[in-house]
């Protein structure tokens, strides 16, 4: 046995020697190669850690846009394959937790189990959807292998289409396009973090992590509730008039801005058509819009010359550049990107400038005979029969063109263009939104304006402006003359909620004096409350508002196409908010009726004024009371007086608030030379018919339906339909057209 022990020990010794030789040969033959191999497989690569883009909040802190962490599920086939027993439990867990079609994954796994380490199983899952799986994965003795998660952020818009044009959206790489997302891109973006490895001085690997810095959030002046009201009634208008006269939306464009006149803060800004921010490339959103070709021009039907609208039938045929032209038309913000001739809404600007420069006192009277010959052109009033002798205030109330032409003549070209500049016409408002149009080439200068252009510009034809320009200028007329830069963001806060920057209202200039401002307010109040006021239908139940209607003929003239609008403000004694609604070519036969805009204003203000905490001052008729109760609006009107004289007291109010029919019924006998009031009413349309010409006449104002101010359809030199629009190509980078 002892001998055997020695033999055994000898064998063991021999084996040890063999192994030592083996170790030696590995070190000698492969040492250098393996040394490199070990260094090569260290992770020097840097991994980018995504930052969280800041949120966009409304004025009350409601979320308009936010970024949520989402997870991508990755399959590491090699890791899974390393443990055969784990394969089935892992697939079972994937099926039950994520509902993944494991048959497909299994095929992939079987083919690539030796090589694939990165296969995306599912994308953009919120944490709630993966937490069960993670719990299963972390159980002791868990047989789930080779599955890991990659983090990223996804932009979410809880309101879907709410304030879509204002907010804008982000493209895949978290870069903002349009609206606030683009304008405030640098503020909202943070700094991505990085994880990387490096060799230190001692030749050992160190890994360092620089964590990501999240972006700042912005608090806007938008009130989500107000915004929703506005959008509701724009949508309602569209639903009412869509496919009415021709196919397509209720109007080419609808726009509405509500602004705090004392700060320039935009409380609501909306346009229609709108789109879902969470699904920006949904072709269905395009339905109803005018079809554009790949150059951005409107497509015209070759057979009948009509414009072509996007329908369910042709929407899927739009492709390539044309598709992006149409998307751009959808994504742009009508309120800031589109310039148009404002029409009569600009009349208070004309009067204000004339008073301010001393050309008129404001108590002058002018005789309207239906038209005025200026510079060899006969420029017509809406009411071609003539309004007779009108004061300036009445000229505003009735929206008389002739009256305005006289005012502008008194003022002269130099003063007129100077004040256009003061009112910021032709200049950008510098509102904090991406894509504001440049209108410098769309207004006249003192050098190129002639007397006929002065005449048409006095009532808002011949030059172009944007909605935001008009409401900012108009706000200065009614707030004592202070021109505030319109803005949407009032505060920047960091990711932990601390304030980084407060953005105060920016007073840019004094446009007119307080006295002038007071005069303009009293004139504009008459537009709604006056007997002949053109804006009576804008008055919401329980309130008195002021404002100005606008009906502008588009180019080419005599095409029976109009942009109708209404600029309103409330309360009348101390204006706090201004509202501006523009209906660009309503889908009706006779477009030149400002009621398409005033009714929208009335609907919005009926809900918005009580919401804004402005108390009712007027008594309510039974009809109005029912209307408010149906809308569940708290009635804050002063208690109705018990004596019988109350009907007299609110007669004026009911008049103004009444719809077309009530106005027709309560026609007063012709006073001055209101000859059109003797015309017979066409029962079908509700318009009066001129027995001489057969033209339809608005029985209230005497305006010819489908009429034109221009005698020969001559187009003003600078007024053409091409406005500066910022468009975006496929990659989302802006280009000027």
């Amino acid at each position, binding site marked *: *046995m*002892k*001998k*055997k*022990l*020695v033999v*055994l*020990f000898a064998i*063991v*010794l021999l*084996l*040890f020697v*063999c*192994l*030592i030789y*083996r*170790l*030696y040969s*590995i*070190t000698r033959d*492969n*040492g250098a*190669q*393996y*040394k490199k*191999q*070990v*260094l090569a*497989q*260290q992770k020097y690569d840097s991994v980018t850690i995504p930052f969280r883009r800041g949120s966009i909040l409304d004025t009350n802190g409601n979320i308009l846009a936010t970024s949520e962490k989402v997870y991508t599920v990755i399959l590491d086939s*090699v890791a899974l*394959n*390393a*443990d055969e*027993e*784990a394969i089935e439990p892992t697939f079972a867990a994937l099926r039950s937790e994520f509902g993944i079609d494991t048959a497909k994954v299994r095929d992939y796994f079987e083919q690539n189990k*030796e*090589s694939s380490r990165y296969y995306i199983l599912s994308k953009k899952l919120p944490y709630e959807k993966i937490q069960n799986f993670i719990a299963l994965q972390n159980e002791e*003795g868990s*047989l789930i292998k080779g599955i890991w998660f990659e983090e990223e952020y996804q932009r979410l818009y809880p309101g879907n289409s709410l304030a879509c044009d204002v907010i804008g959206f982000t493209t895949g790489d978290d870069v903002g396009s349009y609206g606030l997302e683009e304008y405030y891109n640098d503020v909202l973006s943070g700094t991505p973090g990085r994880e990387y490895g490096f060799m230190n001085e001692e030749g*050992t*690997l160190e890994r360092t992590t620089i964590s990501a810095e999240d972006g700042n959030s912005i608090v806007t002046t938008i009130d989500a509730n107000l915004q929703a009201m506005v959008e509701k009634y724009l949508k309602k208008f569209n639903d009412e008039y869509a496919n009415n006269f021709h196919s397509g939306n209720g109007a080419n464009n609808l726009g509405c801005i509500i602004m705090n006149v004392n700060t320039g803060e935009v409380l609501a800004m909306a346009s229609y058509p709108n789109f879902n921010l969470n699904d920006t490339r949904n072709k269905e959103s395009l339905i109803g819009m005018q079809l554009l070709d790949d150059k951005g021009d409107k497509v015209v039907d070759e057979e009948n010359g009509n414009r072509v609208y996007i329908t369910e039938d042709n929407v899927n045929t739009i492709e390539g550049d044309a598709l992006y032209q149409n998307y751009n038309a959808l994504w742009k913000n009508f309120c800031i990107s589109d310039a148009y001739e404002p029409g009569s809404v600009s009349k208070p600007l004309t009067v204000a400038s004339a008073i301010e420069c001393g050309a008129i006192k404001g108590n002058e009277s002018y005789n309207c005979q239906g038209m005025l010959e200026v510079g060899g052109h006969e420029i017509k009033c809406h009411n071609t029969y003539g309004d007779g002798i009108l004061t300036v205030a009445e000229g505003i109330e009735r929206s008389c063109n002739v009256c305005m032409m006289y005012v502008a003549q008194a003022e002269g070209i130099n003063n007129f263009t100077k004040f256009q500049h003061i009112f910021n016409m032709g200049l950008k408002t510098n509102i904090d939104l991406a894509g504001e149009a440049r209108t410098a080439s769309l207004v006249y200068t003192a050098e190129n304006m002639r007397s006929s252009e002065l005449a048409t510009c006095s009532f808002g034809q011949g030059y172009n402006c944007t909605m935001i320009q008009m409401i900012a200028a108009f706000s200065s007329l009614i707030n004592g003359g202070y021109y505030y830069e319109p803005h949407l963001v009032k505060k920047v806060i960091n990711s932990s909620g601390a304030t980084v920057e407060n953005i105060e209202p920016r007073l840019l200039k004094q446009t007119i004096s307080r006295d002038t401002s007071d005069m303009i307010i009293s004139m504009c109040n008459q537009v709604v409350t006056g007997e002949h006021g053109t804006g009576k239908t804008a008055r919401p139940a329980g309130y008195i508002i002021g404002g100005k209607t606008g009906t502008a003929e588009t180019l080419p003239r005599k095409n029976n196409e109009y942009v109708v609008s209404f600029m309103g403000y409330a309360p009348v004694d101390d204006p706090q908010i201004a509202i501006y609604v523009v209906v660009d070519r309503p889908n009706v036969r006779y477009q030149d009726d400002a009621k398409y805009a005033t009714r929208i204003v009335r609907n919005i203000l009926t809900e918005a004024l009580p919401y804004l905490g402005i108390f009712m001052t007027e008594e309510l008729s039974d009809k109005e009371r029912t209307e408010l109760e149906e809308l569940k609006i708290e009635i804050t009107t002063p208690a109705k007086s018990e004596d019988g004289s109350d009907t007299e007291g609110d007669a004026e109010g009911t008049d103004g608030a009444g719809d077309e029919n009530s106005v027709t019924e309560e026609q007063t006998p012709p006073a001055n030379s209101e000859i059109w009031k003797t015309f017979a009413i066409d029962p079908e349309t509700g318009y009066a018919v001129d027995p001489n010409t057969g033209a339809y006449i608005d029985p209230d104002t005497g305006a010819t339906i489908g009429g034109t101010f221009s005698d020969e359809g001559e187009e003003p030199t600078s007024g053409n339909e091409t406005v500066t629009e910022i468009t975006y190509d496929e990659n989302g980078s802006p280009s000027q057209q």
Partner: protein
Amino acid sequence: MADRFTLKKLSTSRFFDSTLLITIALLVIFGLVVLYSVSSYDGSVSFNDSAYYFKKQAVNTVFGLGVMFAVSLVPYHFWERTSGLAYIFAMALLFLIIPFGFEANGAKRWIRFMGTSIQPAEIAKLAIIICLAHLVCRLGNAITTWKGIFIALGASMPMVIAIYGITRNLSSAIIVFGIALIMCFVVSPDYKKFILMGVFLIAVCALAVYVVVQNKDSALGYRGERILAWLDPNAYASGKGFQTLQALYAIGSGGIFGKGIGQSMQKLGFLPEAQNDMIFSIICEELGFFGAICVILLFLLLLWRCLIITYNAPDLYGALLIVGFMAHIAIQVILNIAVVTNTIPNTGISLPFISYGGSSVVSLLFEVGLVFSVQRGITVRDA
């Protein structure tokens, strides 16, 4: 020749081998240091505590040293009487895995008892030494015959089959069988039979390798992937050859004197099971070829001292206990180093006293206790 190994030096009647004790102490302490170095990364990643593995192993080692001391005080003939019981106990633990076992690293090899996990296969290695020593003594001269050998080996077979059948742990089964075989070999004066058996085993292995290589692309090839990976680890670099290849990278990159203790890169998540079966490759990476030879020499010294004690053992039973321990150590060290150097196909064998594993270190120290117990029985002849 035999006299050269007889202890003569000491005149006292009580003999104590301090070299053996120092060797054991060195191995245990070195093992803990290396384990801490190797496992700190995995510990901090998986358990948020870089000393996680070290602490558990240190506790088990202290417990094992207590067991060793206690066993060394018990006269070793006591175990002769309990050998039947030990066999049944070890088998029972193995079968307990079926209902109560829990899985770790994808294998079901552990049972939990009073908050600690026990690996019954390690207990089985201890039991087979105690039992076979007794059985071989009882067989007497019959061990020289084929019949005797088959009885001795046959006695180990239920345990071998149970280990492989229940835990799918081929390496532990091989070790238990190997211990039995070596104990038979040492007792029997015959060579021919063992040479025949050795040739037969080698032939079987060669045949298995041949069959697998021939059926490379079939299902058989898939099962034999470890063998294919052994022959060409680079071809299976992302699968079965990954661990082997990473172990070779570690050994090769260590050079002659290594990168220094604690400086391994391969332990940073690249080498799977670095603190278990692959710990020797990290020793090579950190301490180099030189450090590896030192470790091997420590084991050789341990075996050498055991050889001396066996020579002087008072009786056959005592001698066989130590032979079993030597076989256990020798087989595990040789197979472990052979695996990490890709000399044989990859199979999970831990390095005694150094690899992470509580049951292993406790049963090994139990066996060391037996060695000391036998050594206490040595009466020293007068000088």
